[in-house]
């Protein structure tokens, strides 16, 4: 597991492209998935250091993806940041309960997402 790998899971292709560009520019190896199934598969195959996953997705809900990720022993310590346009306290609490590292409300600035990822990766390294 290298430190600078990230998996972005989101139905929104344009957003995934923007984030992918930005993280690549900052030296990351970026994997992208447009739905939950693919995301879980890529996560298992590449074991990225960080995963950014949208909550509201077709086919597989973000929370299901989160649960599937946390069920894999090799992914229990991976940084998983959930993103969502919904800022309901209940949703945030539920995500953290299911093992999310953080919850970022959309729309966010890509540089803010990058700093959140780096902060959590640094914290994970220290732990």
């Amino acid at each position, binding site marked *: 597991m290298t430190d600078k790998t990230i998996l972005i899971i989101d139905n929104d292709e344009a957003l995934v492209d*923007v984030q992918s560009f930005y993280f690549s520019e900052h030296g990351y190896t970026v994997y992208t998935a447009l739905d939950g199934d693919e995301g879980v598969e890529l996560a298992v195959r590449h074991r990225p250091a960080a995963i950014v996953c949208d909550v509201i997705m077709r086919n597989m809900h973000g929370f299901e993806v989160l649960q599937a990720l946390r069920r894999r022993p090799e992914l229990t310590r991976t940084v998983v940041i959930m993103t969502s346009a919904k800022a309901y306290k209940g949703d945030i609490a539920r995500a953290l309960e299911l093992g999310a590292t953080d919850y970022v409300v959309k729309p966010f600035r890509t540089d803010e997402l990058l700093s959140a990822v780096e902060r959590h990766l640094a914290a994970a390294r220290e732990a």
Partner: protein
Amino acid sequence: MRLPIKIFLACALVLLVLAGVAVWSLVELAHLASAERSVTVQTAEALRLQVGIREAVVEASHLEMRNLVFGDREYAAVSSARAARIAQELDRVEELVTTDAERDALKQAAQAFNDFRAIVVRARGLRAGGDVKRAEELMRSAGQPIVTRVVSTMDGLVRLTQSSLDRSQTEATAALGETRTAIERLRARTLTAVTVAMVAAVLAALAGTATIAVRLTRSLRRLSEATKAVAEGAFREPLPIESKDEVGELAQSFNRMVERLREIDQLKEQFYTTVSHELRSPLNAMRESARLIEERAAGPLTAKQERLISIMHRSTERLLRLVNEVLDLSRASAGLLPLDRGWFDAAAVIARTLDELRPQAEQRGIALRFENGTGAPRVFGDQDRIVQMVVNLVANALRFTPSGGSVTVRVHATETDVRVLVEDTGAGIRAELLPHVFERFRQAHSGLGGTGLGLAIVRAMAEAHGGRVTVESEEGRGSRFTITLPQGAQTPAPVAAPTR
């Protein structure tokens, strides 16, 4: 059961009770009329016959005497006929007399009369043999005393029957008295029965109609409550169908209607969710890309590139805001605005919001002030939406207030509500435009930016919270917008639950 049938049955119950009382009264009267009539009539008839017989016997003996003396055959025939009739009438009297004494007397009379007839036969025999003298002698010596015996026996019988008649008349009088009492009693009883029946019938009718009315009212009230709830956007459980009458049918139709509305509501909600997602996603990506380019995330820019990308960034920003506003407004007017309600201190939240807007105000040379009237006004609502309302009103105020002016936001709580006032010293709104400022795309001042939806959104948000927004303005002096939100534990109108 249909409603008219139910009402008819309630009335029929009353009629049935009344008919029952009428039939009972008639039966009682008929029974009374047939009592104690025969005895008196019968005895009087016996008396009449007895007197007749007594006369007839005397007459018959006279006729027979003449027959014997004159040998007139006509007299003989009449005498025989009379004797036969007397015998018949004696039989008839036997049927009519009532006491044993009368019967004994009658038997003696009949015996004597038979003896007389025997004498007559013998006398006629003598006469036929030509011995008129002896025949006459026989009649005189043997017949006459027998006739006297018959008469005296009949007299005795008449006395007996007379006294029996007297007795039965006395009895009849007593019976009449009894009958009067019975009639009186019957009258009283009928009156009581009719009164009781009337009261019972009226009570039954009242109970019947009251039951119908209560059930009807209850069903209608339930229906009305459910209608109100649906009108407020809450789709509850279907109404229970309690009867098969028109009200039951109405409830059934209502349930079908609510089901259909629920489906339409879901479709609408789905539509808004899809559209908002599909429109916002690419716009967000565009805005973010433009911003990243502007911030040199993709390398250095020439001055011309920077100018163009800045136009793109601002336009995307504006378009995204417009899309958001249109969607919010559509959802709000469809009653689908998701509200994430909670208790919060409106003063603190508004103060923070104003801090964020202050740089913008300073840039325009406008003083942005905040005044908290009464401590911590608590509001139960969606904090973000309330911030959005304040931002819209303050942004509006800043836009229409010239440099050097001021915008003041005041919060104060009354007993029933929390009020947020946004006052400016700006251009004000013309009186004729004032009633329309909360309508969509109605701008009092064009060319100063804004989407024309800001105030419409403020109104929709306020209403979604069970509150309202009002405006006062004087052209050239400034405007004052007031948001009024319900305060305290009162539950606002049910609005569609937060969607995900």
